[in-house]
């Protein structure tokens, strides 16, 4: 019997022949954290160690509340910068870089076959480049800093077989919302999700990112697209390291296979207050909303901003709606500037925020008042996430948010392209 991608990586890292269900102790290649590094530092100090075990493996990106919106957040950032200096951590990215997951992939840390843990639930994203990456908590992040090891359960793998071609006006976000809506927010709990099939090569890196990022919303431990030549070529520009993709064996044991003909998928919307409360857009068309959000680690890359701009070009955001745009990183922001995309968005009446998590988690930059409704490209719509517990969040693709922002109510982007 062959092995899955996850079984192979965790076998190689643990030096044991392991299968789904086994528990291994492994030393990850990288450990990511963000603004929560301040809390991790406090935990780290409880271990009574002066130095982290392996500074090369620690990646810290400030992104959650940047620039600091209050004295408390400023103090957090200050403590992190001081710790980085004191420990001589080489991989620190201050507030001018972007969202941790995007920055992590841009810097060439996410490579095929690498084992990454991160103190953020959307660490699942790096499977878009063929890495094994899973979210962990703060205390265990501190423990990895101190000991350079962590226990992990080898996950079973849920295979999602994609065939067909997306229709115009339908995007990777619609695909993953459809899958989550069909199977529920816990379908992939503790599991690896492997996206494969004849349609997979048509998903570029940015599109793969959307699906792996939102695999977390199915409960997944990690998401994964088998790297193809395009991904390998993309990575060669980012790193001098040799690239050696790991693939599941043909006769590996999968927990189940879910098959999708993506040409049949129409635009989708996740309704309050869970990500699996998904409806086709025709069932929610006409619903008015107050704030549109285009960006975040899910949908803040160039192709997302481009999709929004193609809808908004020459049009104006409806007077009853405010639209916030958050590029995923400085690098994506610059590309969008060079291509004139930002100009289109600003002319349409969008507010451009600095690359970062922005209002996605309700800490700053556009929180919702009671009774308000947001239409967002983010990955989560839990009650109260973007502000008041009496507000509502709907999730959709960048094109859907852009088209709806012009109309002032949720509408099908296919009618506005």
């Amino acid at each position, binding site marked *: 019997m062959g092995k899955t991608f996850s079984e192979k990586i965790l076998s190689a890292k643990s030096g044991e022949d392991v299968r789904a269900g086994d528990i291994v102790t492994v030393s990850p290649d990288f450990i990511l954290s963000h603004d929560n590094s301040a809390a991790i530092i406090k935990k780290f100090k409880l271990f009574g160690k002066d130095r982290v075990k392996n500074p090369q493996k620690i990646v810290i990106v400030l992104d959650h509340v940047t620039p600091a919106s209050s004295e408390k957040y400023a103090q957090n950032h200050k403590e992190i910068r001081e710790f980085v200096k004191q420990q001589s951590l080489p991989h620190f990215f201050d507030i001018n870089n972007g969202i941790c997951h995007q920055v992590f992939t841009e810097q060439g840390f996410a490579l095929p076959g690498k084992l990454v843990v991160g103190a953020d639930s959307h660490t699942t994203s790096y499977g878009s480049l063929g890495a094994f990456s899973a979210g962990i908590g703060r205390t265990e992040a501190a423990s990895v800093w101190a000991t350079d090891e962590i*226990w992990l359960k080898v996950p079973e793998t849920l295979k999602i077989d994609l065939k067909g071609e997306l229709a115009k006006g339908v995007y990777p976000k619609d695909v993953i919302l459809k899958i989550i809506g069909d199977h529920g927010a816990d379908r992939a709990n503790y599991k690896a999700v492997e996206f494969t099939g004849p349609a997979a090569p048509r998903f570029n890196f940015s599109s793969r990112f959307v699906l792996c990022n939102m695999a977390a919303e199915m409960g997944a431990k990690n998401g994964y697209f088998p790297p193809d030549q395009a991904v390998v070529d993309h990575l060669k520009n980012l790193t001098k390291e040799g690239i050696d993709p790991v693939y599941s064996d043909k006769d590996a044991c999968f927990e189940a296979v879910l098959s999708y003909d993506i040409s049949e998928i129409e635009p989708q919307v996740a309704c309050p207050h*869970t990500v699996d409360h998904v409806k086709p857009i025709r069932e929610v068309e006409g619903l008015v909303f107050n704030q549109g959000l285009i960006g975040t680690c899910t949908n803040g890359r160039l192709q997302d901003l481009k999709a929004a701009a193609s809808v908004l070009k020459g049009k104006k955001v409806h007077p009853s709606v405010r639209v916030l745009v958050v590029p995923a990183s400085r690098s994506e922001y610059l590309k969008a500037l060079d291509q004139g995309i930002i100009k289109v968005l600003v002319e349409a009446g969008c507010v451009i925020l600095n690359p970062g998590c922005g209002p996605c*988690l309700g800490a700053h930059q556009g929180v919702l008042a009671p009774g308000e409704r947001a239409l967002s490209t983010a990955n989560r719509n*839990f009650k109260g996430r973007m502000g008041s517990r009496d507000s509502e969040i709907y999730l959709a693709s960048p094109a859907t948010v852009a088209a709806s922002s012009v109309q002032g109510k949720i509408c099908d982007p296919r009618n506005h392209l």
Partner: protein
Amino acid sequence: MKKGRVWKYGDSVNTDVIFPGKYTYTPMEPDEMASHVLEDLDPEFASQVKPHDVIVAGRNFGCGSSREQAASCLKYAGVQAVIARSFARIFFRNAINQGLPVVVSEKAQDQLNDGEKVEMDFNKNEIVTKSKRIAFNPLPESVQKILDAGGLIPYTKQKIMNGK
């Protein structure tokens, strides 16, 4: 064994309703964290919960963010254990790492009533009420060791002291 009351909730109790995102990057003392526990799900809970109380819920408890406060605020509020049909993966890890017992039980949600008094028997792996005993599966041994040590900090400290 200490008696506590059952607080019953449904499926997919997520980390935002357990501990709202707006507080996650604000350093807080345990008491203050406990005062926000379940704020957006059951605003009464924080003021009425007593030490040794038990949460009983459905599927996918703790889904969402990796924020550890979702587990630690429950512990600081005095919650003795969380019993659910299933747990979201990161919450499950966080709970163990914080020394908060998590129990997977398919039956508890159907068989226990809100407000009922229960005891947790971790030696026999049973939930005990006046009239019934509900058995549950123990955790894997390597994971139980972390819980037994009181969480990952004391556990790792021990490991470091032993020369790891």
